[in-house]
């Protein structure tokens, strides 16, 4: 006997209650909100273009150049706030696409089973074992013009396998439950069962998967940008670090050039991970601390 059989749970309000008093969730969401606001508000406080020569090179942070200038005489703050939006775009599009493909493949494999499952499983394992970055390098290197959207899409196309695997396993366990049987017996179509019976039971799970994909896409994009295969137009946090290393920021001790972009990525991705853990605790009563 557990308490849950004794108490009639008021589920929705309880989830909210735990969500509001979960410290991990609070910290994670707060950090994310800070960077989201900065992405929108930040650009209002600069009159420069990211690659505009604004001053002699390597100026330390000052009241005029908040984050200092690069050795090339560009304003670091301008690059930083504009780079943030690239980061979020990659996260949303890349992470979103990765999650979406993962959901479709995972649901289909888990629900259909049999040969479909076997084939999708092999496909999943293949894409899983290929190092995504190596493929991205190859594709990007041959592209003359690279945009941030294309980059995000490529990342999403290679990031889905682990989500697919997780969702397949979940679907497997859900599809054998009573309510799904009931739906099947009553003659519902497969797709309808997936969307009306299985998916709602997995919403929390999907949210968690998306958060992880979001963080993963950001890291992958930063890596790609850093090698010099990021967007050919515009600025990103990875590109800032790439330029910093290429133009001698280390030797010249221009730390204000490479610290902000890396710190922002670490903070955003770290906040995503911690939010994920917090949400997991909220959705999964077993993990709640008593």
């Amino acid at each position, binding site marked *: 006997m557990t308490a849950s059989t004794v*108490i009639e749970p008021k589920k929705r309000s309880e989830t909210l209650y735990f969500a509001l008093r979960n410290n991990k969730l609070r910290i994670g969401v707060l950090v994310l909100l800070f960077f989201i606001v900065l992405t929108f508000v930040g650009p209002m406080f600069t009159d420069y273009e990211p690659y505009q020569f604004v001053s002699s090179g390597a100026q330390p942070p000052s009241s005029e150049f908040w984050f200092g200038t690069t050795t090339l005489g560009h304003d670091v703050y301008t690059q930083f706030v504009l780079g943030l939006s690239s980061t979020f775009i990659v996260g949303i599009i890349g992470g979103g696409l990765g999650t979406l493909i993962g959901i479709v493949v995972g649901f289909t494999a888990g629900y259909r089973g049999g040969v479909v499952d076997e084939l999708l499983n092999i496909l999943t394992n293949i894409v899983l074992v290929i190092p995504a970055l190596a493929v991205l390098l190859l594709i990007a290197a041959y592209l003359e013009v690279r945009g941030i959207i294309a980059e995000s899409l490529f990342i999403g196309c290679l990031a889905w396998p682990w989500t697919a695997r997780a969702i397949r396993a979940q679907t497997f366990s859900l599809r054998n439950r009573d309510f799904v049987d009931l739906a099947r017996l009553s003659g519902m179509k497969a797709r309808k069962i997936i969307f009306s019976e299985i998916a709602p039971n997995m919403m929390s799970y999907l949210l968690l998967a998306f958060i992880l994909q979001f963080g993963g896409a950001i890291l992958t994009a930063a890596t790609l940008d850093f090698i010099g295969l990021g967007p050919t137009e515009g600025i990103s946090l990875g590109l800032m670090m790439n330029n910093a290393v290429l133009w001698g920021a280390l030797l010249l001790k221009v730390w204000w050039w490479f610290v902000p972009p890396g710190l922002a990525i670490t903070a955003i991705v770290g906040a995503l991970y911690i939010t994920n853990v917090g949400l997991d605790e909220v959705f999964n009563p077993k993990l709640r601390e008593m």
Partner: protein
Amino acid sequence: MGLQVENLTVYYQTLRGSVQALEDATFSIADGEIMGLAGESGCGKSTLSNSLVRLVPPLKLIRGRVILDDQELPVADVERMNAYRFRQLSVVPQYAMNAMNPTRKIGRMTSELLRSKRVDYRAALPEIKRRLDLVKLPQEVLKMYPIELSGGMKQRMVMVLSTLLNPSLLIADEITSALDVSTQKAVAEMLVEFRNREFVKSIIVITHDISILYQIADSIMIMYAGQLAEKASTETIIHSPEHPYTKMLIASLPEVGVRYADTRLTGIPGKPPLLLDPPVGCRFRHRCPVAFEKCVEAPPFLEIAKDHFVACWEVFRKYA
């Protein structure tokens, strides 16, 4: 000797408050007795067994004593209880199918477990093999991984393992619910055999399947909503129960031999109360056909005839 439980009260701590899962349980089990413990899910039978085996948060001991073989058990002290577990008090858990470490050979796991209790595996081996024979398990199982055994085999292996140190009290928690009918019967009879051979002195069999108890139990104790309702010999409980809840419970079983009193009792209108804020007095009174004013006080668990205990004011009135 045997087991005495006095005023055992254990609450289940939740963020919404204490669930009063076990209230003033007082009963005893004699040496050699097999006692069935039955009731609907949520009646507190698992809380009772957990309180004896491993009383850890969110369970909290409010008051009461547990005495086994004339020694008081430190039930609330997880560490000190370790000295009694396995040797004096053992358990065949509900999850017996998954109770063994999947990545250890059974023999090795047994030896490591025994060594942690300062028992030499090599010396115990002949006895282990005798008991394997008794439950019709080949001795080779010791060289196997749990995954190589069938469900019934795992169940029997765990029964042998749990009783290896000849504990005074064995708690068998829903051990038959995952098995098919013929295996169920075999497992139940094995419990009796273990008792007869004095591998264990007394046994508490927790189940919602009263037909199993009819076959093997010497006595049956019925619980309702965290309170003891009635305890008597199996014959008495089945054929002449006194507590109104027991009567309805037995009557709701079409005949003895039909299983599962667990799902909602259709014969009894209403639902068990929520134990977060249970009604004062007898917790059955809202569903009880014979309830009267007195029932707002909690009835004591009194012996109305030899070895027949009931907690019901109406019954007391009748016997007074």
